[in-house]
């Protein structure tokens, strides 16, 4: 089905505009299974916009995104089944408990995993049935991160996953990301923290801004 040469995910000549301002243009990147990619760039460079386009939330882009060699338009269901997106907004209902939130999420993805185990893994053992409005910002973020333990998706798209997480939590999350990558997953993330993961590949969106296109496409180390 998928031979080794076909990248898991491929961006072909992708460009995004926001309020008549071009954020990035001519983005050609191949993501293979086992890649760990950090999207870099200053605030407002279009990192979130890019991740939302890749995740399939926003269709407001030009160019093509291919999943396993097929355009997203034809392989959309397979792609959303195989991907996980964690955005700035956690997707957590404050009136519900962590367990209730996650069971909704599980039904949405169609997976079956152990919610209690995932909540224990993110350090929320004992908070399963506490309403989320009683949790702290970091704990709320951890409820969202518990989805990573539930998920069986190969592609993780994480927008600032380390926000509001304490130091041990960051180390644990890094280990989890490393495990996903060694298991043949693909992790695309944005973060303003310096990550210590050895497999990390940086892609700087500044190199794809229209003003910079006259220069050599900096940061375009797009090896497949």
């Amino acid at each position, binding site marked *: 089905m998928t031979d080794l040469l076909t990248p898991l995910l491929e961006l072909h000549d992708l460009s995004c505009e926001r309020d008549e301002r071009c954020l990035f243009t001519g983005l050609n990147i191949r993501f293979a*299974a*086992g890649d760990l990619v950090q999207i870099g760039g200053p605030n407002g460079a279009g990192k979130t916009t890019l991740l*939302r386009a890749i*995740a*399939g*939330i*926003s*269709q*407001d882009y030009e160019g093509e995104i291919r999943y396993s060699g097929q355009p997203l338009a034809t392989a959309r*269901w*397979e792609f*959303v*089944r*195989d*991907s996980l*997106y964690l*955005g*700035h*907004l*956690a*997707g*957590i*209902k*404050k*009136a*519900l408990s962590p367990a*209730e939130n996650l*069971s*909704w*999420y599980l*039904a*949405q*993805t*169609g*997976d*079956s995993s152990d919610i209690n185990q995932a909540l224990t893994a993110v350090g929320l053992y004992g908070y399963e049935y506490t*309403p989320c409005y009683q949790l702290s910002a970091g704990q709320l973020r951890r409820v969202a991160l518990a989805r990573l333990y539930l998920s*069986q*998706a*190969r592609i993780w798209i994480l927008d600032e996953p380390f926000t509001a997480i304490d130091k041990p939590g960051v180390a644990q999350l890094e280990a989890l990301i490393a495990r*996903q*990558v*060694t*298991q*043949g*997953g693909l992790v695309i993330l944005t973060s303003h923290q310096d990550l210590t993961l050895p497999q990390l590949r940086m892609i700087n969106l500044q190199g794809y801004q229209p003003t910079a296109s006259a220069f050599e496409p900096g940061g375009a180390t797009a090896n497949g």
Partner: protein
Amino acid sequence: MANPTLKNDRGGFSFLAGFVANFRRDLLVAARHKSELANPLVFFLIAITLIPLGVSPEKSVLALLAPGIVWVMALLATLLSLDGLFRSDYDDGSLEQMLISPQSLYFAVMAKVLVHWLVSGLPVTLLAPVLALMLSLPAEGFWALFTSLLLGTASMSLIGAVGAALTVSLRKGGLLLSLIVMPLYIPVLIFGASAVQSAVQGGAIGMQLAILGAFLALAIVLAPIAAMGALRISANG
């Protein structure tokens, strides 16, 4: 080299599970926001209670106005509750997750609209005969009022979902929502109120109810599709 332990061919996928999960979650959220739940119902109650005080306590006058007043107030009560239909999901990011879920968005929208109707349209319908009694609606009109509202409020929840989905990304979308939805509510209002009037005068109401039923059938099929498209547009912004 990567060890391919993660695969995409996982079995056991149920589309009904998405509907049930959304339905259960929205009911739970509604049950935990009881004050919001009571909003349209309290509006309905207060508005109708004020009519005899403001217009006339005369029985014959009220009986004449009752079908129209109850229907207009039911319409406004529905309109009042529409803005929150997708708002909280948009604000907390659940909507994004629904858009990229392998579950069908159609059923997710259906589940949300069904819950909306269960907590706004249905209570209004159940309360309407009691309030109609206060407006001294003749007894022949009760059954027509109940059935027409049952069909009508369901259509209004479905049509309203399209407007709510279109305006969800706007901070102050309330006025725009009313402007979008109101013209589509007018046929429902006309046939609903006319069914009650006709029943009071001893006429047949089969035609009006059939048309309301046809509206509902059309809305069930088309409104979630329109709302899906609107939600995708709203998420782009």
